[in-house]
């Protein structure tokens, strides 16, 4: 897939801002119905706790993943919502991101520029906003 197409796809996906978001989403793609504790999830993800929690909350907020509501229990059931976006967009994105090269391409698009400028995927959007 061309980088422009991937960028366009990412532009339509709220909640995907960091490599950790991608990796957590891919984890749920591979384990679409996971009954786990938060600690186990963090351990599987391999990111700092803070980032892992942020990614998880971001995915839930975006509607990509649901979490069972029983705070008294340590384990929660996480269910991937593949139809969270129209036209099978989430499925298509995950098919790419689950591959080695696809993941790399997505992460490259999410990386901030060395000078502190927004990530490549946001530059176009920012310039469009400026014009508007």
């Amino acid at each position, binding site marked *: 897939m061309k980088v422009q197409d991937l960028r366009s796809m990412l532009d339509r996906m709220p909640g995907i801002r960091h490599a950790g978001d991608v990796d957590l989403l891919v984890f749920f*793609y*591979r*384990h*679409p*119905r*996971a*009954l*786990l*504790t938060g600690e*186990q999830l963090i351990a599987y993800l391999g990111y700092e706790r803070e980032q892992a929690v942020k990614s998880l909350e971001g995915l839930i907020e975006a509607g990509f993943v649901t979490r*069972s509501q*029983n705070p008294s*229990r*340590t*384990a*929660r*059931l996480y269910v991937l919502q593949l139809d969270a976006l129209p036209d099978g967009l989430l499925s298509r994105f995950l098919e790419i991101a689950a591959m080695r090269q696809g993941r790399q391409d997505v992460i490259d698009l999410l990386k901030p520029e060395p000078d502190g400028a927004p990530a490549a995927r946001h530059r176009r959007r920012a310039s469009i906003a400026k014009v508007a």
Partner: protein
Amino acid sequence: MATLESDLVKTGISGLDAILSGGIPRSNVILLEGAIGTGKTTMGTEFVYRGAMEFGEPGIIVVFETSPDKLARDMAGLGCDLPELERQQRLKVIYTTRDVFRQELQQADSLLLEEANKIGARRIFVDGAAGEFALEEHSSREIFHILAQGLQRENLTAVLALEAAALNTNAGPSLHEESIADTVIRLRMEDSMRATIRSIEIVKSRGHDFQMGRHSFRIIDKKGIEVYRRVQAPRKPSRDEAAAFDPSTRVSTGVPGLDELVNGGYFLGSTTVLAGISGVGKSVMALHYIAEGARLGERSLLLSLDEQVPQVLRNAASIGIDLQPAIDRGIVRLHYDAPQEIEIDHHFNKIERMVEEIKPRRVVIDSLSTYGSALGTEGRVFRDFFHALIDLMKEHQIAAIYNHENPEMFGMSSMMGEFAMSSLVDNILLLNFVELGDTLRLALTVGKMRSNPVNRASRECEIVDRQGMRVLPRQVPFAVAKMAFSGYHGLISRAPERRPPRPEAEE
């Protein structure tokens, strides 16, 4: 108390319900034991898959080590589309850890069981559920008991896979989970010569009958698991009841001159062995038998272990027999199976299926000796296989011919050589080389014909290019230069001698 058939949960796995006498009593906790690679995950998953697909029973699969996407990929290779069932809300695959799972089953409001309830699950497979929960026997028993209780409360028929490395050997203590489980199924990889065979054994199953012993199974691409009942296991009663031949209908041999020696042909349901050394004409005689069936419009099956189908067709053409039109019409089936590493349960299952499908009146097995060399003649396996084969043919009232290579070039010291099974056979025809002068001539003697008068005079046969075999008349015209067999005695001994001229009064 016998379990009502409707209370039995059918696994849907090919061949497995037959050895379970119909299925497993509902709500049983089934322990599926085996070492790594024995097929536990495949069997447990297929149990749930078939339940949802074929019996309208939604199910849950719980995995700990395998990621669900890999499970879906692997099962897709076996023809099971798990994601589609998930989309239809007939299946849920849940990934968790053993710690969480154990805690869940101790909760009255278990999330896991709630998920099961949401789709009305009737079956559950837990991959790697037992064995690793606890470090010592007491707590392991207790935890397994809690698990069993939790599943029973939900009325789920549960398969719990347990990895047990020691089970590939015969020895080893029994596992304490076995005493709690209602049904114990053991999978093994068994060494057979230098090959490996998968086997399945129902160790126990409460509440119903089942077929004991080790049966074989295979995992087949696009099909899944196929279980083959061990060849020695008893079949349906009708097979034993039918184990007698029809003493009124005869099947002609197709070899000119032979029918008169066998009283008009072989009885339906009879077992005939053609015995003789290689090259003596057994396969030719068998081809005549098949061709005669085709001529009469009777269905025939030739099962060859020695020659592949194109070779059989070429052999037939060389004696003027064209089997292709009959094959095209579907009344003749030629089937070749490679004798190397023959897996007898699977092989027998294949023959059973062909017989049930084709419904032949005539069957030729070429040859018994190849089975002997593949299975070993000294053990029980060959004898049991042959017995099962005979019973199958009798049940279907097939007149079956078995070629058997007797290693003796001249003379015969026994009818079936090292195969001490002539008592199982109804008819034995001995084909033998006879050296007269500088020529090997071909002799045929009826060694045995059960329930028939037997004329044991040796008769000469000949095989003519493009014409095939025929049995020569006993008295040949004087115009023929060579002397007829009736001019000799001791033909099938190693030293035939010419008869002294008979006195005129005897002529």
